[in-house]
């Protein structure tokens, strides 16, 4: 019984961490599906979102929910501007130019955050901090549960948005076929910038949900590397795949940390990534069939 409870707890913790990976991966996938760019700065945008929330809640003393909402909107606006000002210029350049560009942007964001908020970890009081739920002897932290619930809610909202609103359908259309979308009168460039805004907003949600579990600090953007594994496992281009991939990675990582000797936990996500690329490059949920000549 003891072991089973311990195992379940590990799985829940892993799933919570995995939801964060999944949310970051969701940002990658949204952008990749639309513009075929990869945003290596996604993790750093999450970090910025976390810091925005920290400023609003801890400095200006706003209510948690209002502060979080404002921080998400702020980050989304930032994502919109990022695409409209910088990323739009490199369309048509070789793909790895974009990789390097976003890597460089990540450096700038990290330095900016370091100069503005300092290099120490910070945190703010949330309704979930240091509280637990007791389910028949199974003790779960509310922070972890809030991550899982928040992710599920966010996914529901995104699903409804993409399938039931005009803008959401326009986004799907522009991702599927740019030219046809232009012909139908969709302002594709604005729509792409809005997709960047959404993915930045999702990253901010991840940062805010993560803040009670691990503090906010300048280097939290490196989680983005693990989120790559999630996105690749899910098949880079499939939205449910990104989330499932994230949860799988999170759980595998927790279990590896428990059962395998020290040092294995850090490499699990990378090993899973390489194994996926070698054994099943199209990922679990393949959507992209091949290469157009």
């Amino acid at each position, binding site marked *: 019984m003891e072991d089973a409870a311990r195992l379940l707890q590990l799985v829940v913790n892993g799933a919570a961490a995995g939801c964060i990976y999944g949310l970051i991966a969701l940002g990658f996938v949204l952008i990749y599906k639309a513009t075929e760019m990869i945003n290596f700065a996604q993790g750093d945008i999450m970090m910025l979102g976390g810091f925005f929330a920290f400023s609003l809640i801890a400095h200006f003393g706003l209510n948690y929910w209002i502060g979080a909402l404002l921080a998400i909107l702020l980050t989304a606006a930032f994502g919109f501007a990022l695409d409209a000002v910088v990323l739009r210029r490199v369309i048509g350049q070789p793909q790895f130019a974009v990789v390097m560009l976003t890597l460089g942007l990540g450096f700038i964001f990290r330095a900016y955050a370091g100069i503005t908020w300092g290099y120490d970890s910070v945190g703010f009081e949330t309704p979930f901090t240091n509280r637990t739920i007791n389910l028949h002897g199974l003790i779960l932290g509310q922070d972890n549960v809030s991550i899982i619930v928040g992710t599920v809610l966010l996914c529901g909202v995104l699903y409804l948005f993409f399938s039931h609103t005009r803008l959401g359908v326009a986004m799907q259309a522009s991702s599927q076929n740019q030219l046809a979308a232009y012909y139908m009168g969709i302002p594709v460039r604005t729509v792409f910038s809005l997709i960047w805004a959404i993915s930045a907003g999702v990253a901010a949600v991840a940062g805010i949900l993560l803040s009670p579990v691990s503090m906010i600090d300048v280097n939290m953007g490196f989680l983005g590397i693990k989120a790559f594994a999630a996105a*690749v496992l899910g098949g880079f281009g499939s939205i449910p795949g990104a989330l499932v991939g994230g949860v799988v990675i999170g759980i595998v990582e927790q279990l590896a940390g428990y059962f395998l000797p020290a040092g294995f936990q850090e490499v699990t996500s990378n090993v899973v990534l390489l194994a996926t690329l070698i054994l099943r490059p199209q990922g679990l949920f393949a959507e992209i069939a091949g290469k157009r000549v």
Partner: protein
Amino acid sequence: MRYLFKTDYRQDITLWRHRGDLFWYGLLIVVLLLIPYVLSEFYIGELGGVFVFAVAGVGMMLLAGYTGLISLGNAAFLGIGAYTEAILLAHGVPLVVTLPVAGLFTGLFGILIGLPTLRMSGLYLAIATLAFGSIVGTVFQKWDAVTGGFDGFPVPTPDLFGMPVQGANGIYYLSLFVLVVVLWLSANLLRTPLGRAMVAIRDSEISAQSMGIHLARYKTFAFAVSAFITGLAGALFAHYVRYLAPDAFDVLLSVQFVTIVFVGGLGSLHGVIFGALFVRLLPQFIAIIRDDLPFGIGRMPGLEPSLFGFVLVIVILFEPGGIYGRWIKMKNWFQAYPLKRRTSFRRQKSYARSERLR
């Protein structure tokens, strides 16, 4: 201005365009050989560092600039080369043997990582090499029976024909020698059918394939050569730092190598030198002007990486040819003066190439 009158097809692939080239490069070598008698030891050490990074940059350039494969894991190759060199020297193997062995052993790893990644292109390759790099980095930290873990690994002072290679001057001459050899080999490689095949793959995989180029074979070769050269650079790096710490070979170092290639100018060996000068000397430059900057900007932590990121962004947005491309443009302006036309270097309008199949 000199006009080249070509009378032979071989002139297209000669190493020197004309005798003037030979003269200027020879003069550069002589100057570089004499520099240690003029400059202070500190600057010679820094120049040695530039040479080490330039060797690694050549490895990156052959891969990214000439074959079009991006790797974010070259720091792992550098680390493998460095540890191989240090461990072999600690077992008493002479430098003449360890240097090539470090390169070859790293080349083997290049083939290993090259083979499975051949099926990937662009983004997937960048992600896969990133993962490979961080796995190797973790192995360096945890496998302390071999690498000494976080205690570090002291690099013995090597002997070359009875003379100890030590101090700034020793590293300077050793890495200058390796750099010249590597540059000469690469320049020669690029004019063989092998090198031409690599460039063809960069420009279009599909047309290269339809011309009969075996993609898997040449891509693996490019990885192997890149890893070999980076391994050599790693061996030099081991002597340069003299004490190996496992966390030196992280993603940031890989990013520095890619920065060398991008800032210097993709697709030119000259660019490697410019890029290495930039990457190694920028921190020194910041250190010198640090106290003179207004508003205490100079004392802000994180100034250096943000400048790197900033320059990278500026270069990609405004001058994809890098420093070398800018140099060519300046040269052209003077040569054509006052007849420079605005359209001379206008960039062709380019469109996103989709990788999807619908």
